[in-house]
Each structure stands twice: as structure tokens, then as C-alpha cells.
């Protein structure tokens, strides 16, 4: 295969992966909207909404910002930040 063909194939598959990420982000947004409109137990709804938000944040960083293609340390720092802030916010929302 020529280099240009390889590059095109890679670009096509990367574009498909970006569009799939976007579709999942849209579904997750609509899901959290659903949680707000349905009377779930408040604590459960808040926990789910915050977790879903940080899953979305992780996906934007990992896919759109290309952190998923960056060195391991950078990926670890970003994943840790997402997990820490999400946990801190859930604890603050439920415990205080």
C-alpha cells in the first residue's frame, strides 16, 4: 500500500472514531437529561449525573484533545484528575 493510501485509511478510521465518540457523548447528555426529568432518588440521580459528566469529560479529553495518543504519564495525569474531581464533587454533593 502507498503511504498516501495508508494515511487516508488511518484518517478515515480516526474520523469514524471521532464521530462514534460524539454519538456516545450525545446519548450520555440525553441520558442525564432523562435522569433530571424522572424522579429518581435524589442521591442516586446526583451521583449518576456527576459520573456521566466526568465520563464525558474523559471522552472529550481522550478522543477530541488526543490525550489518548499522548505519552502514558499525560494519560495517567488526566485520568487521575477526572477520577479525583468527580469523586470530590460526588462526596461534596452527598455528604455536606
Amino acid at each position, binding site marked *: *500500500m*502507498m*503511504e498516501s493510501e*495508508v*494515511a*487516508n485509511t*488511518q*484518517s478515515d478510521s*480516526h*474520523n469514524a472514531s*471521532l*464521530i462514534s*465518540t*460524539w454519538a456516545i*457523548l*450525545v446519548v450520555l*447528555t*440525553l441520558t*442525564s*437529561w432523562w*435522569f*433530571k426529568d424522572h424522579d429518581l432518588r435524589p442521591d442516586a440521580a*446526583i451521583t449518576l*449525573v*456527576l459520573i*456521566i*459528566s*466526568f465520563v*464525558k*469529560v474523559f471522552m*472529550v*479529553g481522550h*478522543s*477530541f*484533545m*488526543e*490525550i489518548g*495518543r*499522548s*505519552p*502514558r504519564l*499525560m494519560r495517567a495525569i488526566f485520568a487521575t*484528575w477526572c477520577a479525583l*474531581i468527580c469523586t*470530590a*464533587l460526588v462526596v*461534596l*454533593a452527598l455528604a*455536606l
Partner: protein
Amino acid sequence: MATNFMAQQRAPRIPGEVGMWAFIISDLSVFSLYFITFLFERSQNREAFQTGSHALHLTMGVINTLVLLTSSLFVALAAQALRGGYGSVAQKYILAAIAGGLTFVINKPIEWIEKVHAGLGPHHDNFFQLYFMMTGLHLLHVVVGMVVLFYLWRLAGRVKSAPSERQLRFLENGANYWHLVDLIWLVLFALFYLVG
């Protein structure tokens, strides 16, 4: 040769410049403190925060979220097109992203004016004080982001084949700034419109 090329494409690398990532980390740190402040203030007066959140236009919040997510997708697609040397295709994607940003910039003040007219301005209570302050700061990011997108659009117009290293860095820095704007909004939307 093709194998080497593919390996090079897959090799881990930091997108954009380290300086831009330092800015992103500091901006995210500041907003993280705001997120924590919001929930701390909420714990002091849950009722006011619940009433405030219910007074917000949830459908508008969802629309703004979808608009920014789609705009981010267009910027990511533009980056891919530009890397492949397709400047004119990238320009179209960037224009679509700018349209998304413009929609957000129009929607947000409409929401603010509606709230102020209903007597729910920044002085109403802590919820609305934080709402106007945090969404205002975010809107400032969106406006700066649109200027960045305009420069990316101009850059894309000059790319006729493979972009230079400098053009690629500018593209990645600008694209990541726009994604940062999207990322911050995802949490603001959850806190103000859904958790409340």
C-alpha cells in the same frame, strides 16, 4: 516504508505545545475550585440551589451542550483534514464549528436576560451569583475561542498540501483550547442544570 509511516503515526506524542497544556491545566484547576465552591455553597442552602436550578431553562442547557459537543467534533475533524493537507475541507469544518460557537454566544445572553427580567439576577441569591459568574467566565472563554477558530480558519485557507510543523502546532493548540471550552461546559451544565 508504509509500516514505518504507520508506526510513526501511532507513536505517543503530546498534541500541541507544552505551554498550551500548562494553560489548560491551570484553567482546569481554577474551574475545579469553582466546581467545589458551588457544591460547598449548595450545602449551605440546598433549597435555594434547588429552586434556582429548577428556574433555569433545562432544554436550553441541553441544546447548548449538544451545540458545543458538535462544534468540538467539527474542530477535531478539521484537525484531521488539515493534517492530511485538505485545507479547504478543514475550512468548512471550522466554519461549522464557528456557527456552533455563535449559537452558544447568542443563546447564553438570551437566558441571562430572561432570568434578570424574572428578578433572578446575580444579586438574587448565591445560586444566581455563581451562575452568572461561572457561566460569564465560560462565555468569555467561548468568545476568545471563536477568535482562535477564526485564525485557524485563515490558517486552513493557506494549507494546500501537508502543513508545516509550525502550522500543525498552532492548529493543535487552537483545537485543544476549543475542546477545553467544551469540557468546562460539560461540568457547568451538570452542576447548574442537573444537580442544582
